[in-house]
């Protein structure tokens, strides 16, 4: 039945007051929300404790559900594989031939790299991940790109640690709860990573665009040297990310850089590794071998 045009619920004083205070509470809720928003906009960490606790509560269920995600994707991949196998075999054979050549070149480079490093007395810190865990969810309806992982302070995860998949960088830990943590994905508009082109080391910044792609902004503007298909890796400057981690591949050029597609699509990633903050590892390594740098002639 339609509500009467007069909003009074009847002659009952109690019902009238109830109705009235309902509206008062609604407007008060609006004001309270605006107040919360005012404080949380000034300070991004506002409510981090509450969010951490809430995410800890839902993490076990989400973790169980995350397992089914990869199975479902595997099922569709198997189905579609029947229709595209011929084309793919031809393409893969061609790629393998190219990769063999590249591998030989890489081996030569690695050998040269080793020699140069030995000359400089540098040792590469063996970096073991803090923990390997599952990606359990992402803020898929908000314009901010956060994901959740199923490991928190209990597993040694701290704010600032890099999160990566076997294919490349996924993001960075921004909030930690007891058994879950929130990760800022590299496609978020707030994420800015110092990167370089893999082949020659042209410096740039990789900023997320919020729509699944990344904007590569060159540090030095001028003639745009980037080309489609260029691989972008972390440069390690700033000390947050380990150098030479794959980030993205250029798909389209812009006047001041390029649009790139991230290599590790979080949608296809099940397990991720949380790595210690690079700067601290580097410091620990150089502290362990104090003579290495000073004994040079």
């Amino acid at each position: 039945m339609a509500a009467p045009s007069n909003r009074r619920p009847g002659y009952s004083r109690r019902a009238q007051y109830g109705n009235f205070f309902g509206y008062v509470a609604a407007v008060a809720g609006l004001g309270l929300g605006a107040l919360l928003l005012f404080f949380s906009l000034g300070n991004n960490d506002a409510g981090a404790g509450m969010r951490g606790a809430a995410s800890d509560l839902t993490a076990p269920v989400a973790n169980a559900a995350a397992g089914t995600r990869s199975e479902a994707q595997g099922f569709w991949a198997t189905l579609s594989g029947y229709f595209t196998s011929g084309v793919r075999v031809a393409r893969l054979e061609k790629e393998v031939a190219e990769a063999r050549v590249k591998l030989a070149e890489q081996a030569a480079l690695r050998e040269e790299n080793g020699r140069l490093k030995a000359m400089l007395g540098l040792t590469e810190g063996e970096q073991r991940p803090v923990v390997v865990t599952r990606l359990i969810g992402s803020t898929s309806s908000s314009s901010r790109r956060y994901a959740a992982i199923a490991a928190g302070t209990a597993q040694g995860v701290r704010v600032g640690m890099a999160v990566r998949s076997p294919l490349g960088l996924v993001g960075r830990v921004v909030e930690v709860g007891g058994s879950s943590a929130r990760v800022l994905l590299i496609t978020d508009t707030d994420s800015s990573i110092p990167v370089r082109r893999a082949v020659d080391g042209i410096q740039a910044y990789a900023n997320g665009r919020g729509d699944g792609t990344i904007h590569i902004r060159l540090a030095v503007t001028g003639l745009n040297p980037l080309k489609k298909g260029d691989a972008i890796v972390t440069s390690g400057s700033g000390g947050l990310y380990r150098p030479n981690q794959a980030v993205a591949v250029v798909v389209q050029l812009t006047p001041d850089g390029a649009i790139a597609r991230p290599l590790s699509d979080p949608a296809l990633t099940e397990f991720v590794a949380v790595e210690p903050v690079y700067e601290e590892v580097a410091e620990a390594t150089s502290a362990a071998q104090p003579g290495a740098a000073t004994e040079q002639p």
Partner: protein
Amino acid sequence: MPAPLQSALHELGKPRINRAPSPILAVATPWLLVMLGSLSPTWPIISSAPVMPPLGFLLLVAWQQLRPGLFPVWAGLPLGLFDDLFSGQPLGSAVVLYSAAMLALDLIEHRFPWRGFALNWLVACPFITAYLVLAQQLANLGGGATELAAMLPQLVLSLLAYPLAASLVGLADRFRLIPIRAL
């Protein structure tokens, strides 16, 4: 012959002699369904772009249009706060937007008391659009810099998802009113 599923579902919430719906189920179902929608970020869908419709908001609008007055006008505060815990938006964004939507839907309910489903959808469209655009603007104030164009796929998907949300709410409404309590 067993009744087809469709008509079996229609029988679900019908009143029966000597039986009444459970008050707990009748009151709790709408709140739980909206909160379940707000939990969508914990579902196993990881996306590198915003694509999922804001399910909590869609379900709230659908409930409010199907059963006006079922939620108190101030329901935006608790439901919005719950949504903010998981959505990734700055804290308070859903509180403001849910509360404003509840007040505005109340106005519309009193202005156009008789509505069909088509008009409901038509009313829901500007609400969803405003919600997505304002939520994105608030997220941008909180440190993001997403372009409006990046929201287009999500907007289209959300507008098309409203009928699904509405039929889910219709089903939940029948479930809510199953007469299980013996008088």
